[in-house]
């Protein structure tokens, strides 16, 4: 295995920024290859996008494609911090209400038109109507005093506005103003990105080609996350949708595919000595959670939830569910990020304390009621976590029933107050985005533990309204304390994934999407 960028798993709470930095050093010390222009790259991914109208969906399968075609005003860098993409800089007024973005000049759309602030404004207006995330609700008005300036006025100060606007989850991409009046899925696929749309054949592939009129961001020396100076070397990218994991691996081995979005861990280990492929581990990719329904007996009893939290051997669950690609960290934000809370409530993580669990169970007055664990067959991690934790809970005397459904059934059931006591979910993009969507998941009337908690709601409020970073960090600490103390959800551990390329692909660095810019075929 030629691992040019391997972030190894199970290495404890290392700083993600540090690991990425080390990886960059490893890259720097690797043999230097001259970049070559040309060639066609085929990338295989499991799912096809529910839509290729980038802003309307939060699906990973769509992001993989849309972030090659479109660019955002602000986006995320290699360490998930906010970074300008079409914006060169921005100013925030002291009252936190006015955001003034200065846009790059001379940027061309794929149809040859020059991008201006009018396009950016129209795109955000469309996002407010059809975008999959609700961040535009905070906006009061927008203005374009000149072609390179966009001014956004908020109704109230929203300190997390930039974080939400820059999230690649359902990216707020900039499209030509002429397209912005169109409904979801009705637009022409025209962006300013390094690759332009050629064709979409549902159930088969999306094809993109290099946009030779691409105006790279010269404020940077090299690519950085979704931004930086991006260079398209290959002529075309074909993104194939191949649902069967074995067929994806076979395609990579036979040379039909050059890049795999995801390779199962056992396969990555099996191919460790295969010189024809390179395997990259991205860690952390997500974290595995075990969420309780705190409105339905018996999990409406905090003592019982605490008993379960005490009983769980998280490392066993992680080792089994991830086939070894995991690390044990307790934080609800990743180490090295601004909202990481140090050792706060670390003592309640991975307790595997059977005596304590049995004592708490007795105190809870548990009388052998059934604990219904909801999981799905679509994600191996979810299913294996449910089975492993289920077996652990049987050992302390809890009657467990595991209900396995398909993904849409599980996710819809989990939004209801009936039909489940605990639900296994891997959260990936939320912790990557920062604290907001992690806390919002457990806040307000739609809180996923099915009860509204005043402490979490207050923390969410503070997170949303405090202008000082320290106050927002403290608010996140309140959240972390509360979910551990009330045992609303168990953090099981961090999950890594493997991405893979053919041996002749150079420059590839794993990230939240497989990036096809700045890679070339040797």
């Amino acid at each position, binding site marked *: 295995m030629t691992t040019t960028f391997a972030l190894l798993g199970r290495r404890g709470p290392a700083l993600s920024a540090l690991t990425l930095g080390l990886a960059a050093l490893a890259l720097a010390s690797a043999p230097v290859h001259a970049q070559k222009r040309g060639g066609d790259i085929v990338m295989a991914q499991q799912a096809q996008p529910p839509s290729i109208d980038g802003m309307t*969906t*939060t699906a990973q399968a769509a992001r993989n494609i849309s972030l090659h075609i479109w660019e955002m005003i602000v986006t995320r860098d290699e360490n998930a911090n906010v970074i300008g993409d079409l914006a060169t800089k921005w100013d925030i007024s002291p009252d936190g209400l006015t955001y003034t973005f200065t846009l790059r000049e001379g940027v061309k759309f794929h149809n040859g038109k020059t991008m201006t602030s009018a396009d950016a404004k129209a795109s955000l207006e469309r996002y407010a109507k059809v975008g*999959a995330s609700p961040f535009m609700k905070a906006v009061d008005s927008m203005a374009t005093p000149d072609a390179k300036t966009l001014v956004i006025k908020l109704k109230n100060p929203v300190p997390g506005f930039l974080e939400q606007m820059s999230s690649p989850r359902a990216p707020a991409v900039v499209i030509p103003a002429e397209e912005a009046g169109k409904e979801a899925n009705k637009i022409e696929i025209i962006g300013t990105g390094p690759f332009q749309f050629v064709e979409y054949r549902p*159930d088969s592939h999306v094809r993109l080609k290099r946009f030779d009129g691409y105006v790279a961001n010269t404020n940077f020396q090299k690519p950085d996350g979704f931004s930086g100076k991006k260079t398209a070397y290959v002529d075309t990218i074909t993104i*194939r949708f191949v649902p*069967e994991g074995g*067929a994806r691996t076979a395609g990579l081995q*036979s040379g039909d595919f050059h890049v795999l979005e995801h390779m199962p861990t056992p396969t990555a280990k099996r191919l460790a000595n295969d010189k024809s492929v390179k395997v990259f581990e991205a860690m952390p990719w997500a974290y595995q959670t075990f969420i309780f329904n705190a409105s339905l007996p018996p999990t409406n009893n905090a003592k019982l939830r605490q008993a379960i939290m005490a009983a769980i051997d998280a490392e066993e669950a992680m080792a089994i569910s991830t086939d070894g690609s995991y690390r044990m960290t307790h934080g609800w934000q990743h180490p090295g990020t601004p909202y990481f809370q140090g050792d706060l409530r670390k003592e309640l993580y991975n307790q595997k304390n059977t005596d304590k669990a049995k004592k708490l169970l007795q105190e809870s007055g548990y009388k052998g009621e059934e604990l219904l664990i909801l999981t799905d067959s679509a994600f191996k991690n979810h299913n294996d976590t449910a089975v492993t934790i289920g077996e652990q809970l049987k050992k302390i005397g809890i009657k467990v029933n595991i209900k396995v459904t398909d993904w849409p059934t599980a996710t*819809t059931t989990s939004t209801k107050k009936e039909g489940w006591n605990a639900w296994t979910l891997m959260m990936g993009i939320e912790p990557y985005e920062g604290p907001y969507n992690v806390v919002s998941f457990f806040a307000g009337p739609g809180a996923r533990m099915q009860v509204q908690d005043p402490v979490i709601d207050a923390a969410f409020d503070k997170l949303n309204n405090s202008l000082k970073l320290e106050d927002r960090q403290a608010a996140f600490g309140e959240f972390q304390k509360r979910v551990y103390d009330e045992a609303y959800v168990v953090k099981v551990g961090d999950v890594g994934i493997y991405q893979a390329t053919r041996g002749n692909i150079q420059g590839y660095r794993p990230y939240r999407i497989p990036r096809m810019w700045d890679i070339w075929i040797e």
Partner: protein
Amino acid sequence: MLRFLVHRLFSAVPVLFIVSLVSFLLIWLVPGDVASTIADPGASAEELQRIRMRLNLDKPWHLQMLHWYGNLVQGDLGQSFLLNRGVGQAIVERLPVTLSLTAIALTLSLLLGVLSGVIASVRHGTWLDQSFMTLALLGLSIPDFWLGLVGIYVFAVALGWLPSSGFVPIDQSFVGWARSMALPALTLATTQMGLLARITRSSMLEVLRQDFVRTARAKGLPGFKVVGKHALTNALIPVITVAGVVVGILLGGAVVIEQVFALPGVGRLIIGAVLRRDYPVIQGGLLLLASIYVFVNIAVDLLYAYVDPRVRYDDR
């Protein structure tokens, strides 16, 4: 014959209506909706609701059903939630893949299945008979998804003769099309080949014991004529019946094969629609498959009359 045909065609209407009604009700009984697949696993309830409203999924199910039938009688199968096109168009785009896959698999399984069944019956009790029937049993027993994956590893990874997955349209390259169809069609055909071989063999064995075969042999007809013209023609009736069923099984099997080989066919369209709750596509796709199945069975009934002169529908 014409009266029979018209009668059968009319009787297909209530069958197809019931199929569409049951599938509609089943879809609505299953929890989960398309919003959960458009969104990420961690999407908030508000994000999900925004998507539902955009797709009009917040309206009561009976209104949606009436709307669907209203469109259907005008020949409109509705609009896919996810594919940015009409259901009819989505199906038409994928039909060539599924039809060519099914047609090639049917041809292969009929040719090889009937041939090996005939050889096994003629060489009844010999090692040849045993070998063919063992192979037929193996073909019947091996799950097609497993066979497909083994085929990919042998012919794509190890030998590099065929592509590992994907589809090349015939108008783009005939050779490319043939290469992309070879493994999937052979995999799909294998199970049915076994079934047809066993049916043909048992039917042939019965016919070969009949007096008219003995007479044909006694009057000095060459062996291949006795078998090919007299015995096989008579043994084909049950084979044709099974072939009609086989078409249905192949269409069902195509669903799995299209998944394994990443072929953009109707089966994969329906599976994807079920997993993502794209209701209009599930409805339209199931209606189409049911129609094909019904019409193939009508065709089989007509074939009886062609193969067996004793069957004349107008006499009834």
